[in-house]
């Protein structure tokens, strides 16, 4: 392996930060969900990188589990978006403010 672990971890961190900033900045629920996927992927990269470093398949298994769960989450998240659409709610997270204070 020619590129060191820190490189991978850094790329992962950068993706994590981008995803995080995306969640913090975007108002469309769909984009928010997509940003979350970016974050999940970055974590997967970290897991796989460490798995390679440690030399066990634990990390990879964990990454697969994360993927499965991400799928489940997307299902629920998108289901919610659909339900909100049906209820004719505005698809803008900033407008989801009936609960506050």
């Amino acid at each position, binding site marked *: 392996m020619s590129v060191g672990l820190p490189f991978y971890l850094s790329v992962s961190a950068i993706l994590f930060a981008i995803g*995080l900033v995306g969640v*913090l*900045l975007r108002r469309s629920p769909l984009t*928010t969900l997509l940003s979350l996927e970016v974050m999940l992927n970055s974590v997967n990269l970290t897991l796989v990188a460490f798995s390679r470093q440690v030399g066990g398949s634990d990390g990879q298994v964990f990454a697969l589990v994360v993927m499965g769960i991400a799928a489940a989450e997307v299902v629920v998240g998108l289901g919610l978006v659909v339900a909100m659409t049906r209820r004719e709610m505005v698809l803008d*997270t*900033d407008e989801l*403010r009936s*609960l*506050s*204070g």
Partner: protein
Amino acid sequence: MTGLVWTALALPLAGAAVLAVLGTRLPARGAGWLASLVMLVAFVCSAIATIMLASRPHEERAVVETAWTWLTAGSFQVGLELWFDELTAVMLLVVTGIGFLIHVYSIGYMRGDEQERRFFAYLNLFVFSMLLLVVSGDLVLLLAGWGLVGLSSYLLIGFWHQKPSAIKAAKKAFVMNAIGDVGLALGILLLFIELGTTAYTGVFAGAGSLDSWTATIAALLLLVGAVAKSAQLPLHTWLPDAMEGPTPVSALIHAATMVTAGVYLIARMNPLFHAAPYALETIVVIGVLGLLMAGAIALVQTDIKRIIAFSTMSQIAYMFVGVGLGAYWAGIFHLFTHAFFKALLFMGAGLVIHALHGEQDVRNMGGLRSVMPKTYFCMLIGALALVGIFPLSGGFSKDAILASALEVGTPLAWVAYIGGLAGALLTGIYTFRLMFLVFHRRMSPYAEAVAPTAVKHHGEGPSSMLWPVYILTLGAAVVGLLQVPGLTHVFFDWLEPIAPAGMVEPSAAQEWLTTLVAVSIGVAGIAIAGHLYLREFDATERMRLGRGRLVDHALEHRLYWDDLYAVAFERPAQWLAAVLRRDVDRPVAGWLPTDGLGTLTAFLGRSVSVIENGVVRSYALVIALGMAGLLLALLVRAG
């Protein structure tokens, strides 16, 4: 014997309770008769008990009996203790006897008042309190009686409670008395701490062993109580105002019984005072100053009852001089005779007031001699007894006091002697100023309009009012004969055992000399009064004694004592209380500022929930920042 005393003590209480509970269910007239009957029985019991006591040998005459333990705590113990000896017997007889007469008098006086029953209940309560005071064998119990007489006095002065002036006077009397109570209580505390007991037996036995400072302080503290109750300097200001009460009250409480309690206390505590000579001297000084001052003020008063009230204060000051000089028997003797003639004077005044439909200002009287001859005669006897004209009762007792001063012979005693004689002059003047203004000279228009018709319709008064007056007149005339210098010796002999350290007794010569001087001075006083007041004059003219406006003003304002108290105590206290209430209590008690705290927490709460703006991005931001912050802190700490 003690059973009789207990009965005498309990009956008035029972009477008061019955009257209070039955209230309006009793017929109006019945209340008075019931109360009087109670008093009569009490008097008879007292009399029999006294006779039984007299029949005992001298050394067995002090009887002590405990009914039950009243109060205990640790080593402190007070029993409901009866102490029956010669002094108690005298007081018992005075209280029940004079008290009975005044009860009967009141039946007539209070007739028609819608609150008659309440009046008699209070009156009975007072008698109970006074009896408790005189029969108790323990200082704490004495204090209880002491306080209860103050209470009943308050109730009776304020009997006509719709009159603000009456209520004000009642409150004043009570507060003054409370100050005295506290002084007395402190004295008792000191005695308990030094002697370990408050029972008379223990106190008398231990008094001699006290060091002189302790004894003096204790005696002075007791004196505070005595001074307040007996309306002596400087706690006398309540007595003149107390005349707002019904006249029988003045006669009973503010002449015959309660106000003399101070004299009784000093006489009773003579073993203690004996150990505290400074305290005795203080008493003499207070007495001399008081008798002169009160006499002087009496000269310019216009209210008939107030004149008599100041006279009372002056006479009690004589008694103080007497007991202060160590002539306890003389003081008590004067107390005894004074009870008769002063009650007589008050009740006579009451007849006058009754006839004038409640008028008390002497300027609106005059010439009543012809309208009310019986009253005039009785009051004349009383007045002469007061001035001390031989052979009426007051002369013997007052002269006994003055003669004792001669016998003592110290410089202070000489001052007392001279002062007492000067006081006798004042007594003559103010007493007969009263008599002349009321009964002689020309009738005032008011009296002319009211008195003749009133007397024509009702006589000088109902027989229930007149008969007690007659009896007292007789008493005022003759009771002095119990102790005629050189001839009879009843009073001294009777009281001698109460003072283990002995009593001052002047010789017959000293007494007769004093009598001679005093009677002359008294007659001179009467003459001066005649010169000043027997002339015809317009009732609206101000009745001045001297020429100086300052003196007049001062006397009319009772030497500014009231103003002094107002400036020195009352107003500062009111001010302090107002300031505390307005500005200080809230910040001090509100150290936990619930309002401010509420506002603060509400503000904090709102600021916290500002972040809870419902925007999910902001929530995520807080979470991210929180995570980053925690991370930063930990990394900095670890690195």
